[in-house]
């Protein structure tokens, strides 16, 4: 069989074998074995720089492979320990940084024609690897974009913060090829003076995000990243590389995203950029969550923690909408009796303690799904659903009893009471409903305080016009 024809056929075979492979590592291994088979060599290796990427024929970790590449002009012979005198052939895959293919054959040198074949095989391998790398980069880019779209959708939909953080950690672990599975988010504990951290464990599980507290080592990787507000890298004494990227909430550095790399891996430039991107998404999610939290807090009364007027109003509207025509909503408007006197005689601090105590007593009386709110000053409201008149009356009696019990406050004992107005399904409109309950409360006050009055639906209309506006 003519040498030239056989060589051409063998290059086609190598190309077929290598291009059938889905990833670089498999392609390289297949190529090395096929190249050795083709020239009946015992030893074959792919060397890139100083590293033997893959090889067959010499004991694992052998340093002899690089000697094979020293033969000048790509051809020669070398005395290999354990094998004897070997013919050697090598050739570059393409550019210098793509590496060289080396082959060694016991007892027989490579002819010029065979060396040409080695050159051809090296070129085929180089071209195929380049193609596989491009495909791989494309695939990874698409993968990254899909993850980012998912995270951005969660943020814009105001998904719970825990869900956004989990999605980001999972994405980071998935997209960064070098991550050994250790992607963590560390956030400073706002309540801790010694800067203990609350951390997230492995992101690979499907379960919800979990937190555990740990102490941050001062001067350590994470502490430094937070202090200087810049990404930091370090290698521990076991040779493992870690990177920490700071994350922010409203511009303040409150923690770091950390990645621990698998043994010997490094983070490429695009990987670094991706990591910064993930940290940025976490910062956006944290800031967003904080803003939402603040907004929510503003709608609560700072002193008692109960929903303020606006929030109570909103929730009452919600109750009514849910109730529909069932007619099972009862509203109690509560005004404290003689509260001003307590403020005047014992001071505002005492008044505050009283309000906090009464707020808690109200919470304790109502059922889980019912509403309690502080409408202002010494006015409270309770919405019960489902409730009928009898139940509303029972609750009113209990509230009056409870709020009649004295409260120990700074400076003495406060002894106050409550007047309650009850409205029952008098309107499907929250404003009107509140107005009816309010008017009933006034009646209770005029009738002597420490009692409740149930609004008369028939008289509701005329009264509404004279009552002060209740809408916020």
């Amino acid at each position, binding site marked *: *069989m003519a040498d030239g024809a*056989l060589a051409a*056929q*063998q290059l*086609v*075979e190598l*190309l*077929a*074998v290598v291009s*059938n492979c889905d990833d670089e590592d498999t392609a390289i291994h297949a190529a090395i*074995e*096929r190249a*050795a*088979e*083709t*020239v*009946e*060599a*015992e*030893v*074959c290796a792919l060397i890139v720089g100083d590293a033997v990427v893959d090889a*067959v*024929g*010499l*004991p*694992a970790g052998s340093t002899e492979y690089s000697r094979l590449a020293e033969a000048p002009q790509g051809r020669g012979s070398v005395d*290999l320990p*354990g*094998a004897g005198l070997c013919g050697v052939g090598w050739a570059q895959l393409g550019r210098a940084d793509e590496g060289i293919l080396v082959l060694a*054959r*016991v007892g027989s040198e490579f002819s010029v024609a065979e060396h040409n074949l080695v050159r051809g095989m090296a070129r085929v391998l180089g071209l195929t690897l380049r193609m596989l790398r491009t495909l791989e980069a494309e695939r990874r880019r698409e993968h990254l974009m899909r993850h980012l779209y998912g995270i951005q959708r969660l943020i814009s939909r105001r998904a719970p913060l825990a869900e956004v953080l989990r999605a980001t950690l999972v994405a980071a672990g998935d997209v960064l090829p070098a991550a050994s599975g250790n992607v963590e988010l560390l956030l400073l504990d706002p309540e801790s003076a010694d800067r203990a951290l609350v951390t997230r464990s492995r992101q690979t599980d499907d379960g919800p995000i979990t937190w555990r507290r740990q102490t941050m080592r001062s001067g350590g990787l994470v502490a430094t990243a937070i202090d200087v507000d810049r990404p930091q890298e370090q290698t521990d004494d076991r040779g493992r590389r870690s990177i920490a990227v700071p994350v922010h909430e409203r511009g303040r550095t409150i923690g770091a995203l950390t990645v621990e790399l698998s043994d010997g891996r490094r983070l490429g430039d695009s990987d670094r950029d991706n990591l910064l991107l993930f940290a940025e998404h976490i910062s956006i999610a944290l800031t967003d969550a904080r803003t939402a939290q603040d907004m929510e807090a503003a709608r609560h009364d700072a002193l008692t923690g109960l929903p303020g007027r606006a929030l109570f109003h909103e929730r009452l509207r919600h109750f009514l909408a849910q109730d529909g025509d069932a007619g099972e909503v009862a509203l109690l408007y509560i005004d404290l009796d003689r509260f001003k006197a307590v403020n005047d005689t014992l001071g505002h601090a005492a008044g505050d303690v009283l309000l906090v105590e009464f707020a808690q007593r109200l919470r304790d009386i109502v059922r889980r799904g019912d509403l309690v709110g502080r409408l202002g000053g010494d006015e409270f409201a309770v919405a019960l659903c489902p409730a009928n008149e009898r139940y509303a009356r029972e609750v009113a009696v209990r509230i009056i009893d409870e709020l009649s019990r004295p409260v120990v406050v700074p400076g003495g004992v406060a002894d106050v009471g409550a007047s309650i107005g009850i409205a029952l399904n008098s309107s499907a409109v929250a404003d009107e409903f509140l107005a009816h309950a309010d008017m009933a409360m006034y009646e209770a006050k005029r009738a002597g305080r420490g009692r409740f009055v149930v609004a008369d639906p028939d008289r509701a209309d005329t009264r509404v016009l004279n009552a002060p506006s209740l809408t916020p």
Partner: protein
Amino acid sequence: MIVETEQATTGAARRWMAVGTSVSVDSYEAGREAAGRALDGPDPKLLVVFAGIEHDPHRLAAGIRAAAPGVPVLGCSTHGEINAAGPRDGSVVVTALGGSGFTVSTAAVPEISGRQREAGAEAARCVAEVSDRPHRVLLLLTDGLARDQETVIRGAYGVLGTSVPLFGGAAGDGWRMSGTFQLHGTDVFTNGVVAACIGSDAPIAIGIDHGWRPSGEPMVVTQSGDGRVHELDDGPALDAYLDRLDAPAEVYRDEQALRHYVLSRPLGVQRRSGIQVRNMSTAVDVDGRTIGGGGDLSLGALAFAMEGDEESVVAASARACRSAIEQLAGSTPVGLLTFSCAACRAVLGDEGVVREGARIAEEAGSIPYAGFYTYGEIARTRGINGFHNQTMVVLAFG
């Protein structure tokens, strides 16, 4: 007399090989008898057992242990046993290696399917315990019904490297194609690999030869996949192949006839230093028109239809023996292992194998030898390939 004995002790007794056989149908008795007969020297180091599939491997192993307690045992089932008394079915042939000039370390790896490369590597690791000898060989016996045997050898090569040759065979089961067995001590495996690394003071040689020659021009593999060739020269592979041989009409469609026909007409693959032979008969594909030939037949490979007959096969067996013996450059080997192919046996027929046996005996002369008809031969001396079909492989211990 005394002088002779002393010489015998210091010279040949450093390394010896002996063969014992038994035709007893009782597996325990057969093992005990054959092993007893093989123990013909001091300090036995290894027993290699070839047994017909009819035997109960557990009882067989127990019988061998009774005769040779504490001696490492390696063995497998066959499609016929080879020894100086002539080829036989259903017998037990035990080869013993012994003497201070040998070091042996053994290994057994179960469940190789799906992890062939790893299994080969695992089996080869026993080589580390035989580093005290200048000459080594790894003897491998595999389950002949496992796929991708070449990958097992690659795995072993990855551990052994260039300096340790490979020799062995794939266990048979009397052509039943239902299950073979491998032995390691008293452990019995199926779907396993058993190995012995044999180190020796004297050189070890391997001869490899086959009696097949190409018929007509080569064909190019134009489509392949999943271990089979789908197209040759852009047409259905099976038809292209049969056309090349001018096969009779009934062979094209009848599975039985086809299987019989291709047994003596294997596939050849062009390699650097010759044509590699591949068995086509174990999985014929009448419907799909594909042909088998080993997993690595890729696009662009040059394939031949090969032919041969009793004369060419027997001549090749003789050449393989001669080659192994001659490589030891004048010194007489202490023994030979002769592994032939079950498919060749089908070609030779019952009378042909007797004639083959006689030719091997002729080449061996007074050198003890034993072997079996395998479902694939293992021999790696050059390059990284080591699995053969329809080939004779011979190992000679110096």
